[in-house]
């Protein structure tokens, strides 16, 4: 008896040791068409099984079969409305279907559930990515409807700001193209009578029009872009370095209706006074357009986001990197800007946003978000993958009723024989065909008599 215990203990320890050695951690596996077919075959057997449908939805999502993924997720959520992993994948799927409002609603609902800080950060990053995708989709849609939009007069009080064109030779200053545009947008947004088109929205349109790097910032292009984004007026400008370490900035307010120039502004000063030059140009434009400013609006426009030109340059570089979709680099640039000037709030905010977008948008990020939200994991049980093989293996060697309950027993649902009562076996029980079992005790006794 003692020996048996020792043997069992040794065996259990050995099992544990093997288990520890084999620890592999989570791993994402790509899904093959065969794997997908295997999952579909399983679902045909268990069409309402939420686990199976969730796995299938992930597989469909991975294969860009978003409509199929949505249908599978509907089955899951019909049975488990609170399944947050399914909700997360529904959001991803809506993104794939370019149903951005629906995706935003799903992420919003998840955020409303007061998730942990990490989940919240990832969801906000996802929303940032979603906004970017939506901007590009809207830009494509606007271009597709250009003839219709060009006949619709845009709102004259809506203003879009083009990236400023750098015409100088010092490539290190080129990122200021985005930074200055962002600054002008920020300044004009303080004027209550104006509505500003987000810098990112116009940038997405320019990207789709493939004008971002072509240098075409003529009034006709501005007017066309204004129609496409619904802006009655478009700010276009350029800047360059001038002798004795100075900078010159020129800007024009172009009417989208007729591509005419409604106002111009210009300034020139030392590079370290760039913000003064920019403010001067903004005030000139507003004055020439006849936009009255309240003292509060004037004061707000006069405020500098930072007085550190190097920090602003880093911030501008971050904007450029963000526009390229390089959120990791953008985050680093924004962080560097915020470190140089801790009072530079826009840089700190953008660093946080880019960092979240990077986490939420990298390779395997959807799986990471799903895992963080509720345990779905990166692809979870891969289609036709090892999950079923593992389940069947453990259930065959350590039997349990869980094999039936879970519904993942095996595709063929084979019930294998198990060992019956050991005493009965020893006594030669063989079912009703053998002599009456009353003899069992006798059998044992007879066997052991000399």
């Amino acid at each position, binding site marked *: *008896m003692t020996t048996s215990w020792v043997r069992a203990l040794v065996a259990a320890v050995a099992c544990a040791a093997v288990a520890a050695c084999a620890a*592999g951690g989570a791993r994402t596996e790509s899904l093959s068409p065969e794997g997908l077919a295997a999952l579909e075959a399983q679902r*045909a057997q268990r069409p309402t099984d939420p686990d199976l449908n969730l796995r299938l939805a992930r597989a469909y999502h991975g294969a860009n079969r978003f409509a199929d993924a949505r249908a599978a997720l509907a089955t899951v959520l019909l049975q488990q409305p609170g399944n947050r992993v399914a909700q997360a994948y529904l959001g991803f799927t809506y993104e794939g279907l370019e149903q951005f409002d629906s995706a935003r609603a799903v992420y919003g609902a998840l955020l409303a559930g007061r998730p942990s800080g990490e989940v919240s950060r990832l969801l906000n990053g996802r929303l940032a990515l979603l906004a970017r995708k939506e901007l590009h989709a809207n830009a494509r849609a606007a271009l597709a409807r250009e003839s219709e939009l060009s006949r619709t007069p845009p709102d004259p009080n809506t203003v879009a700001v083009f990236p400023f064109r750098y015409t100088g030779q010092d490539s290190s200053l080129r990122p200021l193209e985005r930074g200055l545009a962002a600054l002008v947008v920020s300044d004009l947004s303080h004027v209550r009578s104006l509505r500003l088109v987000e810098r990112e929205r116009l940038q997405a349109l320019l990207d789709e029009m493939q004008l971002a790097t072509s240098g075409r910032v003529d009034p006709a292009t501005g007017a066309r872009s204004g129609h496409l984004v619904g802006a009655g007026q478009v700010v276009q400008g350029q800047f360059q370095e001038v002798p004795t370490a100075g900078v010159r900035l020129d800007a024009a307010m172009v009417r989208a209706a007729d591509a005419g120039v409604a106002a111009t502004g210009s300034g020139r000063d030392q590079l370290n006074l760039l913000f003064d030059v920019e403010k001067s140009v903004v005030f000139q434009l507003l004055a020439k357009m006849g936009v009255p400013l309240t003292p509060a609006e004037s004061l707000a426009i006069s405020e500098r986001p930072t007085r550190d030109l190097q920090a602003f340059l880093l911030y501008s570089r971050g904007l450029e990197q963000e526009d390229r979709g390089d959120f990791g680099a953008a985050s680093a640039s924004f962080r560097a800007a915020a470190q140089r000037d801790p009072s530079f709030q826009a840089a700190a905010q953008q660093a946080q946003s880019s960092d979240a977008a990077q986490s939420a948008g990298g390779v395997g990020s959807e799986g990471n978000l799903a895992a963080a939200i509720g*345990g779905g994991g990166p692809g979870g049980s891969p289609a036709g993958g090892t999950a079923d093989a593992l389940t069947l293996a453990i259930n065959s060697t350590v039997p349990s009723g869980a094999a039936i309950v879970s519904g993942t027993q095996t595709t063929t649902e084979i019930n294998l024989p198990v060992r019956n009562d050991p005493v009965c076996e020893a006594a030669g029980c063989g079912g009703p065909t053998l002599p009456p079992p009353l003899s069992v005790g006798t059998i044992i006794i007879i066997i052991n008599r000399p």
Partner: protein
Amino acid sequence: MRIRLTLGVLLTLAAPLWSQGATALYSRWNALTGFEFQRYGFAQGLVVESASQWSLPLVVVAPLGRRMSLDLTTHFAHTEVTDSAGGSTDYSGLTDTQLRLLYTVGRDRAVASLSLNLPTGKRSLTTTQFGVSSAVSSNFLSFPVSNLGTSFGITGGFAYAVPAGGWNVGLAGSVRYQSSYKPLSDSGATLSYDPGIESRLRIGADRVVAQRGRLLLGFTYSSFSTDQFSGGALVNGTFNPGSRLIGDVGYAYTWGRTTLTLGAWDFYRLAGRSGTGTGAIGTADNNENIFNTELRLARQLSPRVVLEPLVGYRHWNLGGRLFSVGLNSRFGLSDSFSGIASARISPGSVDGTDVTGLGFSLLMRYQR
């Protein structure tokens, strides 16, 4: 009582943990119960006229944190055997309870298991009741509950799965220890039985075939160390149950809402060996081979209803065969509840005597 209280506390603790992310093999709450009935009636010629059993299974699966799950399996069963003379013998009661803990070592890759057999069932029977146990112990007839209770047991297991080419391969092993117990309560009350250690190994593999089909193969090997029994000065001996080998194969092919499944297994049991107190060793007459195959055709009638007619055949090398015709139905009742209803009739013969099997079950499943 103490065990049940501890279990209740564990399950209660599991609840808040469930909401967290999980890599456990079973990451959600599940429960199953229902009613199962199985009866075999024998034509004249055998001492036993019929053997029947109804049972109420209870299975609960609870996630326990991110990596673990705990499951519990038990039955309440009633078994009755009638003889050709008009007499009948029966017993009822709770069976032993299996409590299994699974720990995920690597998601979808490796899982370790610790299972306890809690002796909640009646394990000491009268020799008359023991006869009932004998009647339902046949591997060939395969009753859902083959005995009420044995003794405390502990099983350690480990499974590992890995993709290999187009295959998913699962490997597993387990070791089971069971403590000694007294199986008889009347004339053999002094008999003490000490089961040996059981070791199990399994290798299984599955893959997709022809896009819509899935093939599964498996092989399980069980070996046993020697059981020992003693009953004072009169009874003393050993029994080696003999190794078992089980091969299984399954193929499922799906088109549209229909799935055709062909499954088969073969159970081969080597002869055991009995030893006496004097050291004499004899071969037990328990070598057997059972082959079982089944063909099923599942059709999804609606999003929540699947009907599955089936036919089957089972062959026993010691003189038995059964043909089966049946119908399974799986249906969803609500977001959390679903059911499985099955009925089957199995005519055949055993030892040249006609036998008719009848079985039906209704199982309800809860999941959240």
